[in-house]
């Protein structure tokens, strides 16, 4: 039998070629230009990158971003794990309803959700008013205009991105392992801690990195729920590009962020099967 002229993989390459060319033209090329601007403006060299080490306001923005994103990731994972765990045990019917509850907020604009939280959390908002009406508190609780408000808003946004990969992971766990553990005399707690939890860890790592990476790009929620007092890296970049037109600094930060994200994704790829995480199999 004759082999095809390009070899078997050659044909596959030709099939993906149009998509690949588009990626290079519309994605890779602009990215390279961003990198280019970051070393060419205002003067050629690595001056912009030196700011990463010398500029105290960039330090502060990076630290704030890191702190909020780590906190958001931790809380989201904890809550998401519980939801995914319950979902994995629930009946088909309940699962469908829960899934709807998780997916519905995804279709609501991030701006609308931020303002909805303002309505709930502000001094004369629904929560404070009802608590004061019941006599539980005398003065309104400071639920908003601080990092608490930001974290609430961000966790709410991120939950689906944690639940979905966690659920995929949990569904893949062979229930017979748990049954075996119980059969060998483990308590419910022991079988969870020593069998289920370790088996679900790849999903946890994957979800953490996904949520963390998404959080890095946040700007609307922190700006609104933080009372304007919190500045995260995405907004800092936007100010550099759109307002003060210091493109060198803006593109340097964008490049740094991309490199950091690719590094995290690289780490992710070592720990979990990316195709499974994104639902390809």
């Amino acid at each position: 039998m004759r082999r095809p002229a390009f070899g078997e993989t050659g044909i596959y390459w030709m099939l993906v070629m149009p998509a690949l060319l588009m990626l290079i033209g519309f994605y890779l090329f602009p990215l390279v230009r961003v990198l280019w601007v970051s070393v060419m403006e205002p003067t050629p060299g690595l001056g912009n990158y030196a700011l990463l080490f010398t500029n105290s306001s960039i330090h502060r923005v990076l630290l704030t971003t890191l702190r909020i994103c780590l906190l958001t990731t931790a809380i989201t994972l904890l809550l998401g794990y519980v939801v995914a765990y319950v979902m994995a045990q629930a009946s088909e019917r309940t699962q469908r309803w829960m899934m709807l509850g998780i997916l519905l907020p995804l279709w609501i604009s991030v701006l609308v959700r931020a303002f909805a939280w303002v309505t709930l959390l502000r001094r004369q908002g629904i929560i404070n008013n009802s608590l004061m009406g019941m006599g539980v508190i005398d003065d309104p609780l400071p639920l908003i205009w601080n990092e608490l408000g930001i974290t609430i808003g961000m966790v709410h946004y991120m939950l689906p991105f944690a639940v979905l990969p966690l659920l995929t992971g949990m569904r893949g766990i062979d229930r017979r392992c748990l049954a075996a553990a119980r059969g060998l005399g483990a308590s419910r707690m022991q079988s969870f801690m020593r069998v289920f939890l370790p088996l679900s860890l790849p999903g946890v790592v994957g979800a953490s990195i996904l949520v963390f990476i998404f959080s890095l790009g946040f700007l609307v929620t922190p700006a609104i729920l933080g009372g304007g007092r919190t500045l995260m890296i995405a907004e800092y970049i936007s100010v550099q590009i759109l307002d003060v037109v210091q493109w060198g600094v803006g593109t340097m930060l964008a490049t740094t962020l991309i490199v950091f994200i690719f590094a995290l994704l690289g780490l992710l790829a070592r720990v979990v099967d990316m195709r499974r995480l994104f639902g390809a199999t």
Partner: protein
Amino acid sequence: MDRIQSFAEDQAEILADEYRAGRVSRRQMLAGLGALGLAAVAPGAARAQARPEVVVVNFGGEAVPAFREAFQQPFVAGGGRMVIDGSGPSNGKIKTMVQARNVTWDIADSGVAGTGELGPLGLLEEIDYSIVDRAKVDPAFTYKFGVANYMFSTVMAWDTRKVTGKPTLADFFDIQKFPGRRMLRRSNQGMLELALLADGVPADQLYPLDMERAFKKLATIKQHLLFWNSGAESQSLLRDGEVVMGLLWNTRANLLKRDGGGRMDYTYNQGLLQPGLWVVPKGNPAGKEAFRAIASMQAPEGQVKLLASMGNGPANPQAASLVPAELKAVNPSDPANVAVQAKISAEWYEKNGAAALQRFLDFISA
């Protein structure tokens, strides 16, 4: 809103809200939007085909169809050609266009932060004052790279349930006297100036701004501060009782007072008068026709209509005599209101604007 809103962006939003609430008619809205852009058509414009198309860019929304209906059509009837673009002329977008040598805008709605950042980089055309009439603008607001289109102010507003009498800017910084949170814009423009005025710097000696002193003054009430990004946010923070006093644009302060049933008040005393500026991107396609369009917008009649519908002050001093008596009090460029305000210095912003914004953002997020 994904970034700090500009005054011009907020204007389109106010007008749309007012129209929906039925407080201005469609005709008034169109007139107002037109005055924001193009108030009058240059007379005697008969050379139809010889005139290039002028692209006017603003911050969009309802302003775009309204511009078309009210001004593109008469302009076309008068022999001119015009397109209205609502895609929002941020500094970054203008820079992109000019650097790519693909300029599609002729006239952009901007401000001192626009001329300040873009002018020195060679990204704007110089205003041609042989076509645009200097006599129709306050000389303080005619610049090399931009010319005043309308006036607005940064003013102090307060909740009269919590703040009694006629407070001054000094009271804004006195938490003991009037307890409660204060509100600033999430950008330096106007905020540093009002901090210095509160600290006793005379209005005519504001510039060059003593930044050390301004930030020191702001630091005294930092823990009590909230910051607004968009005009609508500034209005709701005061209305919802989240803050008791705030520094905000006169247009929003005016809406608060009008809709607040006596609960809200504001003053032009110790305010900062600022211009909305027309700028022309370098290498604009219509060439000198852009300046003819700007000249046509200097007609006082349209500017007064804009004041009536939205509270923007006419940039043309000759408009003062046309302003109806009941609107004089709300007009930021009314002679009586100008007398009690400081005027912004575009020259200072050209040299220090970016650094001041950077430092302001540092200050609030520290």
